[in-house]
């Protein structure tokens, strides 16, 4: 057989193609098994990775940031490379890092530690200074560099408004746990939990990367401008009256949205470590929800509302005040010890007559009806407001071991019963909102997966009828006007009531020197937009709430009508929007 002369060409082509094919296969195998790749990535390899998802932000109702996040650094030292400790310590000192803390941490490190954390939650400014020193020392010919120093950035909570609304917000500690206020109540949805997870190192498996959800952002019902205004008013009130503490709550009576809530003292949340200094002993963090007290005459509005609703009395019912009344074997007298003669129910409220209200509860209503209404108003039970550490106060009931018959009379004017300001605000919302009592809340909305879900208004009960609510509001507005109260605001019709209460002593009896001064009110009466609660504890300038608390209420409302765009009644009624039109009120 004779070989064809051009066969060698075919063989050459075949050989080259074979070499090419084999080369490709060899390259594939080589890449898959190369030591370079194997050293970094092997299919199926996983590496540990730290995830620090940000904690959810907290905004006020208009979007202002109340609680956000900032970057801080953990500074560590790799001991396996035998770092030059004097150089490291000098650099730390030059960067402004607390060497006492560093030395303490070093002293706690185990003997064979390979890596120690020198400091944590170091500010960006200090960390950047240390990084600059590290770069400068990197090429040090003597080998005294800072290459063993490692930086691990992570989040820390930051409060741009410092102490604004601090009693509502609460704070977050370095272990990323929320304490008090909103931060504690919604810790589970706010917290972006830092996790350390195995993730695939192989870039071809990048889609298997775990998704660590960040904390949810929430929006509060709080209005930053109103909050700042009431805090300023409250601070000045303490100075002017010498009160030991104060509380102001502003709520929308139609929705239960807390527009502002403040009590003293307040804490700069960026310096939460000072809490033990700012709140010594058993000082409540937020008195509006955590401190129950005997409110005094402000609770007469609930007694009268219950009496009117039950038909026990009418606004025109006349009571002849002799200056005292016996209830349960004890004599009850008026705040001034005087006898006020014939008084209708508006007069009883306007003159804040204890004798009249004790007569209403004990003689006209009876204990079953009276306590039934008090329970329907929520007294004795926590409101369930979405803030941590709410207390429920105490409403003793017939049958309780420590209830005495006289308390049917004293409870009618707010003595012998303890409530928190938020309980009174919730109860009064029924009077301002056509008999419907709303659930007070601070969460306006939460953002989940980019979508905002707003908190819906919840009616927690209808303790009185709409007719009764209108009647009691009118009576209270008339009462303020009759007594020319210091709470009156020109141009606006307001319903309200003062409360001057004695303070019970732990050993029994009442404090002869100090009182609690309270004012609760809402307005405008025909279309309530706000309900305001003012409580000053132990004011020294005067012992009458009408003198110390009512002016504070007036100052708050003067701010509210401006900040909430509430025109005077005359203007508002002239400009009332015609249904279906788009005309509104501007200023």
């Amino acid at each position, binding site marked *: 057989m004779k070989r064809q002369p051009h066969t060698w060409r075919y063989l050459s082509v075949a050989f080259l193609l074979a070499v090419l094919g084999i080369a490709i296969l060899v390259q594939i195998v080589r890449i898959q098994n190369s030591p370079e790749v194997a050293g970094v990535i092997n299919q199926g390899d996983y590496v540990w990775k730290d995830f620090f998802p940000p904690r959810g932000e907290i905004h006020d109702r208009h979007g202002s*940031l109340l609680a956000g996040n900032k970057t801080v650094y953990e500074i560590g030292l790799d001991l396996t490379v035998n770092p030059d400790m004097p150089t490291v310590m000098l650099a730390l000192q030059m960067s402004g890092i607390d060497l006492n803390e560093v030395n303490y941490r070093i002293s706690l490190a185990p003997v064979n530690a390979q890596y120690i954390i020198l400091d944590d939650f170091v500010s960006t400014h200090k960390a950047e200074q240390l990084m600059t020193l590290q770069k400068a020392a990197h090429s040090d010919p003597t080998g005294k560099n800072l290459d063993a120093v490692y930086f691990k950035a992570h989040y820390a909570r930051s409060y*741009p*408004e410092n102490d604004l609304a601090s009693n509502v917000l609460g704070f977050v500690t370095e272990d990323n746990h929320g304490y008090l206020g909103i931060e504690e109540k919604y810790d589970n949805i706010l917290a972006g939990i830092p996790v350390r997870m195995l993730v695939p190192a192989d*870039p071809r498996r990048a889609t298997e*990367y775990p998704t660590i959800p960040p904390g949810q952002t929430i929006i509060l019902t709080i209005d930053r401008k109103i909050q700042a205004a009431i805090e300023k008013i409250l601070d000045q009130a303490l100075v002017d009256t010498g009160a030991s503490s104060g509380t102001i709550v502003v709520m929308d009576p139609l929705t239960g949205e807390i527009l502002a809530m403040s009590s003293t003292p307040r804490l700069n949340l960026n310096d939460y470590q000072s809490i033990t200094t700012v709140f010594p002993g058993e000082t409540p963090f937020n008195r509006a929800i955590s401190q129950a007290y005997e409110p005094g005459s402000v609770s007469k509005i609930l007694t009268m509302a219950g009496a009117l609703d039950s038909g026990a009395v009418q606004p025109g019912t006349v009571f002849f005040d002799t200056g005292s009344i016996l209830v349960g074997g004890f004599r009850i007298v008026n705040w001034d010890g005087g006898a006020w003669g014939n008084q209708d129910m508006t007069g009883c409220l306007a003159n804040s007559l204890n004798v009249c209200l004790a007569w209403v509860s004990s003689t006209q209503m009876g204990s079953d009806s009276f306590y039934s209404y008090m329970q329907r108003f929520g007294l004795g039970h926590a409101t369930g407001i979405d803030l941590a550490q709410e207390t429920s106060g105490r409403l003793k009931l017939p049958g309780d071991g420590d209830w005495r018959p006289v308390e049917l009379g004293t409870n009618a004017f707010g003595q012998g019963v303890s409530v928190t300001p938020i309980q009174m605000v919730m109860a009064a919302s029924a009077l301002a909102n056509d008999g419907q009592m709303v659930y007070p809340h601070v969460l306006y909305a939460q953002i989940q997966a*980019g979508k905002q879900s707003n908190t819906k208004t919840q009616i927690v009960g209808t303790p009185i009828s709409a007719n009764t609510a209108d009647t009691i509001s009118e009576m209270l507005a008339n009462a303020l006007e009759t007594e020319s109260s210091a709470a009156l605001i020109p141009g606006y019709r307001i319903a309200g009531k003062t409360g001057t209460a004695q303070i019970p002593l732990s050993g029994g009896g009442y404090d002869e020197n100090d009182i609690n001064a309270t004012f609760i009110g809402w307005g405008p009466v025909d279309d309530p937009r706000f309900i305001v609660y003012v409580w000053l504890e132990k004011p020294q300038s005067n012992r009458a709430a009408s003198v110390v608390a009512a002016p504070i209420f007036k100052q708050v409302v003067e701010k509210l009508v*401006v900040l909430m*765009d509430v025109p005077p009644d005359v203007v508002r009624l002239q400009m009332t929007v015609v249904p279906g039109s*788009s005309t509104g*009120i501007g200023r």
Partner: protein
Amino acid sequence: MNNVTQIVQKVRQAPWRVQHQWIGLFLLALVLIAMVAGIYLNVTVRATLAGREIQTLRNEITPNQRDNADLETQLAGLTSFEAVQQRAEAMGFQPTSPDEITYVAVPGYVAQSAVDLSTPSSVLGLPSSPVILPEYTESWFDYFMNQQASSASAGGQP
């Protein structure tokens, strides 16, 4: 007829023809193997590069998020109530009182309502995770089936 058969048989059995047939088959096999290997290598390299880019971008997301959080907090500090109030007072503004305000009816005026921080729908439509092209994930069988399906739908009823 016999002559024709003999000629065909001679041609078929010619050693150089048999050799060419084998070489041709071998070359065809080599070309196929080279094609498959080349495509596999190409796809693998592109997938790896894309994966590496994803990893890099993921690593960049974290510091970017931290920077955003820092900047947002700094901005909030600069526009905090106290800071704004101080600037306003320095500029000569002062808080107003109810009796200084004149109210007017404004057709179409909408009172300020609470904020809506929902992510705009245009942004919500974006994929939350990187899209991996089907070329990197589908098999040959899937590819041919998809091609067939797309061509069938393209030529289908309008």
